[in-house]
């Protein structure tokens, strides 16, 4: 499955400055693996240690938090939009 991934500001440096990239995979986990292959360092910016629980970011598939779906095993469909969203700091 080919999906669109929205890249947040702090990760754009790793993704060549792009705010949206294409990635392929059948689940969120596979999408992240694919991102890591294209843009090394992405995974480390998303997780600490135990991936399932120690997220620095929220991940949404079609606007829905994967916490409400199947977590990293959430299936993705062709053309889905995946949003990677860190907590923003500025005020």
């Amino acid at each position, binding site marked *: 499955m080919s999906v669109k991934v929205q890249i*947040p*500001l*702090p990760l754009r*440096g790793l993704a060549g400055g792009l*705010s949206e990239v294409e990635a392929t995979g059948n689940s969120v986990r596979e999408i992240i693996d694919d991102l890591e292959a294209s843009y090394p360092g992405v995974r480390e*910016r998303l997780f*600490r240690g135990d991936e399932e*629980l*120690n*997220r*620095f*970011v*929220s991940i*949404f598939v079609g*606007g*829905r*938090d994967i*916490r*409400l779906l199947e977590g990293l095993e959430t299936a993705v469909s062709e053309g889905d939009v995946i*949003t990677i*969203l*860190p*907590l*923003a*700091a*500025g*005020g």
Partner: protein
Amino acid sequence: MQPHTDRYSRQTIFPGIGRAGQTKLAKSTVVIIGCGALGTVSAACLARAGIGRLRIVDRDFIEYHNLQRQILFDEDDVKNQIPKAIAAERHLRRANSSIEIEGVVADVNYRNIERLTAGADVILDGVDNLETRYLINDVSLKHRVPWVYGAAVSSDGLTMNVIPGRTPCIRCLFPVMPASGRVATCDTAGVVSSAPFIIGALQSVEAIKILIGAEDVNRELITIDVWTGAFQRLQIGDSPSPDCPACQGKYEFLEARFGARTTSLCGQNAVQVVVPGDAELSFEELAKRFREIGEVSYNEFMLRVAVDGYEMVLFPDGRAIVKGTNDESVAKGLYAKYVGM
């Protein structure tokens, strides 16, 4: 002159608020933590809307580069070196003398946050760093006071409501605070004023709805990009996460188990800032950001940068020594602004 009873007529005509809602607002207390772009916008909205008691807490003074977006301040405030909390109080008293407004000049931390938020019906987030937000989250859950998260950097903004026991909290969504140096801040990524204006305005109306007990309280995470014009509402669910430590009563930021530690280095006019976790700073990346701000040099062991009249020396593990001050909150503030925490 028209009677001041006319003051709120245009919002009481609006059925969602009405006279009953206005009476509730007049009896309410809101604490705004952080009075930068978000805080000045929300303080202005809420003071004018007639919130009975408004406490505005901020640790900073006003600088020229704040005037681009911090709408309560002016050039006289910069020249007279008025702290933001005090300037906000003074300006807002002129906008509405019929409510209580209290500006408090303080660095909010785990020791004082419970005192500073005592009596609040809603807490509004206007801070410039993540650590204080996790602290607000803890105090909100512990004392069952709703808070409204808001943040803006670059052309992006985010906001969501945290209603203890009824909605996910910030740690349900973001269980771990990102390592220092990995967060975009307004001081390194810049900020387009419209982003905090929109977010501050949304935070204010959410506070009003929560105070009134309106049905229409937002239960989603709202994101905006004012540059591309993209607005999103993201579904975050309608209950706290069973895995969330804070929602299970473990207030780790309030207990100071996480968060930066500062130590004044005796006799050196310097303060050390130590951040939790296993940060691994990329000097190359940081140097690129810092070049816009001040003179910067680095080798594999340390990075030096001159900012705001201080010198900050950073180490790869995220530790910093801020030279030119003995004030721990100044050092922590600089770290939050330029490295990010």
